[in-house]
């Protein structure tokens, strides 16, 4: 009987370990992927939107909508890339504040706001530059809100 208990415990323990254990490589890959999404997709799209709003680049409804749709595709995936143990300091290049895990629902809610705001900005592009300018500015407020609460970047 005792032996059986031991075996059960061992098996249960092993199973727990297997589900919980995320290797260091997985953590690094998660950080790399989220940086990729921000640096290569969101960043350039936001840059283009900003340039159109400022008039540095002529406003183009199709390109503006595409850029906003690019951003729209990110948040759902993005929030899945924050396994515990990927805060700043734990993994190189991470800029994630521990606040993310203290209130993960809030973090997810802010990401959902980005999805919503980017969809609105994409829709506003068809209505012309003025409408796009307002919607774009509403969206970047979400960027700022999220970064202020959840990103700890070293000032460079």
């Amino acid at each position: 009987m005792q032996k059986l208990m031991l075996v059960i415990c061992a098996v249960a323990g092993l199973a727990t370990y297997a589900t919980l254990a995320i290797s260091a490589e997985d953590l690094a890959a998660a950080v790399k992927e989220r940086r990729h999404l921000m640096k290569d997709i969101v960043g350039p799209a936001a840059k283009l939107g900003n340039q159109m709003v400022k008039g540095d680049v002529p406003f183009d409804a199709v390109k503006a909508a595409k850029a906003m749709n690019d951003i729209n595709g990110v948040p759902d995936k993005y929030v899945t890339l924050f396994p515990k143990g990927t805060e700043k300091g734990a993994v190189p290049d991470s800029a994630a504040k521990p606040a993310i895990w203290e209130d993960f629902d809030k973090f997810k809610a802010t990401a959902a706001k980005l999805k919503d705001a980017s969809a609105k900005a994409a829709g506003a592009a068809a209505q012309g530059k003025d409408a796009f300018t307002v919607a774009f500015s509403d969206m970047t407020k979400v960027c700022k809100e999220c970064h202020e609460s959840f990103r700890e970047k070293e000032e460079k």
Partner: protein
Amino acid sequence: MRRALLALLALVLAGAILFYVLTVPVTLPASALPAHTPDLANGEYMFTAGGCAECHAAPAKKCDDKKTQDKTVLAGGRCLKTPYGVFHVPNISPDKETGIGNWTTLDFVTAIKRGVAPDGEHLYPAFPYPSYQRMTYEDLIDLKAYLDTLPAVKNEVPEHEIRFPFNIRRALGLWQKLYVDGKGFTADPKASAELNRGAYLVQGPGHCGECHSPRNLLGGIIASEAFAGARNPEGKGRIPNITPSDDGIGDWSKADIVDLLETGNLPDGDVVGGTMAAVQDNMAKLTDEDRKAIAAYLKALPPLPDAVPKPEKTKDEDEKHTAPAGEGGNGEQEHDTPE
């Protein structure tokens, strides 16, 4: 032997007297204040431009929380962790016991223009009076009148915890001899009204140089390298160079600067973060003319290379990024980071 001892004693005494004389707090005479009817709206504007709340408003939760409870509740209590020790930001609400409710306008202006409290105590320049001293008397009178309208909060803030020798407040008198003259902003008669307004906002209330300019060993700003970037005074990393050079904002247009100040958006698609996020919130509340004036002034600064070189690590990373890919590696490409 006895003579030598006497001579030494005399020298020490002379030194002590000299220290005493040189560190006597400099105060302002009542006659320094012009006759001026306070303009509360301008006082509030200066409060915003000066970012008073970012230090003096009670922090949200922990004492080093960047967020504040309410920008008009200036109960103090924020802690600033610096290489000199921990500063506990004072209560400047109009509470008579624990705030500055008993200060006269002259007391207030003296604190800002000379870094001296009403009891004659020297104030630490963590309070950025080396910048604020450039503000006009009128703006300061307005600011004091505005502060008087804010809620009085009883909150005793702990004493600063500063290391030796920086804990000798009296010695700050010497430092002030070097960096504080109480002179107001001097407009450049050859520059436009816009440039002068920008210079005033940046050098005076905005106190931009307190973070963006490098400091010498004494903690004084190196004037010849003003705005060329600096070490982060509150932690790791660097504060960016904001002169119009390749290292700084040479490739930013004035519109880029105005946009950053108004919306927080950076030209590269990122948004402003860290301490600057709170500063930007204030800049967004200024008039568009003032943001344009700040941009015009920054673009007219002498272009300077970074005062603090980029860390070696970043250089290595850059090399890694620009190295030809695909030479027997795993085929995975590095992502190009636009930093």
